């Protein structure tokens, strides 16, 4: 019966894993290590990190980043404060962060529909590396350099954002 309960709990949590704070170890390891001490959340000057609610199943209470509301601004204050190593304490360079990868929805993205827009390109913290403009017009994500901070997702003028960061934590 216990197995059944655990399976159920995992089934709700695996659906769509939210973004973890920068430096997070792979999701399974993260859930084993995070003790919900809220330190990352408390040190964050932008209030980017919030606690996961019940809809996230077994990971309730753990820190997540809701990029559309407040993205991560890569100040790199949170990785060193984690006591258990759920966030990699040695991660200090923002270029090395890998929270996820931004994906552009070409159906709704404005330039692909003939309207000039450079919001994501101009606000990307890994400027001219993670998001490039093809033909000076169409934004493209370079997966290699994208850190998944979600700033592009935040600034996208399209309703429900044409660029969405997919979490890197599919176990």
């Amino acid at each position: 019966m216990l197995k059944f309960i655990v399976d159920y709990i995992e089934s709700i949590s695996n659906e769509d894993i939210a973004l973890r704070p920068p430096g997070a170890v792979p999701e399974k390891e993260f859930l084993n290590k995070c003790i919900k001490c809220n330190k990352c959340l408390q040190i964050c000057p932008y209030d980017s990190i919030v606690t996961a609610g019940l809809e996230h199943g077994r990971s309730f209470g753990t820190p997540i980043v809701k990029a559309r509301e407040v993205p991560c601004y890569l100040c790199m204050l949170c990785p060193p404060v984690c006591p258990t190593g759920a966030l990699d304490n040695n991660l200090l360079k923002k270029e090395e962060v890998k929270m996820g990868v931004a994906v552009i929805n070409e159906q709704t993205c404005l330039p692909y529909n003939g309207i000039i827009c450079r919001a994501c390109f101009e606000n990307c913290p890994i400027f001219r590396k993670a998001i490039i403009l093809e033909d000076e017009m169409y934004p493209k994500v370079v997966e290699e350099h994208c850190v998944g901070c979600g700033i592009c997702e935040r600034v996208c003028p399209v309703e429900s954002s044409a660029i969405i960061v997919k979490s890197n934590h599919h176990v």
Partner: protein
Amino acid sequence: MFSKNNFYIKLNKYRKAMQVFSLLFLIAVPILILLDIRYIIGNLYSISIWEIDIVDPSMVIQTIILSKEFYIPLIIAAIIPIALALIFGRVFCSWMCPYNTLLELLELRSIKRIQRKLFKRKKSKNKNPRTYIYWTIFSVIIISTLLIGLPIFTWFSMPGIISSEIFAAIIGLGIGIDLLIFGIIFLSEVVLGNRYWCKYVCPVGASLSLFRTKYTMKITYNESVCDCAAYAEPCAGNCPLNLRPKEKMLYPYCFNCGRCIKVCEQTGNQALTFAFTDKDDKKENINNVEV
């Protein structure tokens, strides 16, 4: 060592002051963060004061069980609470734990009377349960953590839940399911009584009890001084955990709150004291010979 007059009565006052202080501290941390002062961060799972990291030893045990690796900074961060437990016993429970503070408030006579009427509970007899019951329950918790692979210690850590919910309430984050777990355990405590959680189950207390040596502070009983032995036991009557301080096998259940010693001092003779060794018994023997 503790020969000053009214030492234990004063000590108990300090303990209460510390309980209030620790509650205020938990409220102050989120307020300071709202004011953008981030020198003290964390809650009772783990707290950082400037550069000093402190982690609850039960969380260290859980992380080692779940992740199966020894993360050195984490183990270093547990040194302060472990050292405290080695010297003074489970004083975290009696001096700081907000759940204990809450339950001690429930001991107010008026509340107890209502409780007794509502649930028709009789006064339970004081006794010291067998030690193995305590360790069996703790090993069941550890083994189930190992088997299920879920952070059970975190979910059922009362001080952790209370501190993180105080934070969430003040900052304005959503209140989590933690509060439901807390509510269930608290209500069962109100109905069942007898402090079953602190006494038998609490994984935080059990982890601290692991670090107990011969030289850890303990309550010692000097029978030759005790003059209320025959007819009454004010010490047992004042024990929050329904233990009998006069008898042996007090540990690992007792968390050294010193309330029994306080009432003992109030009766005028100090039969119960805190001591770090068993040497006191020998001294008494020598004194007896001299007399």
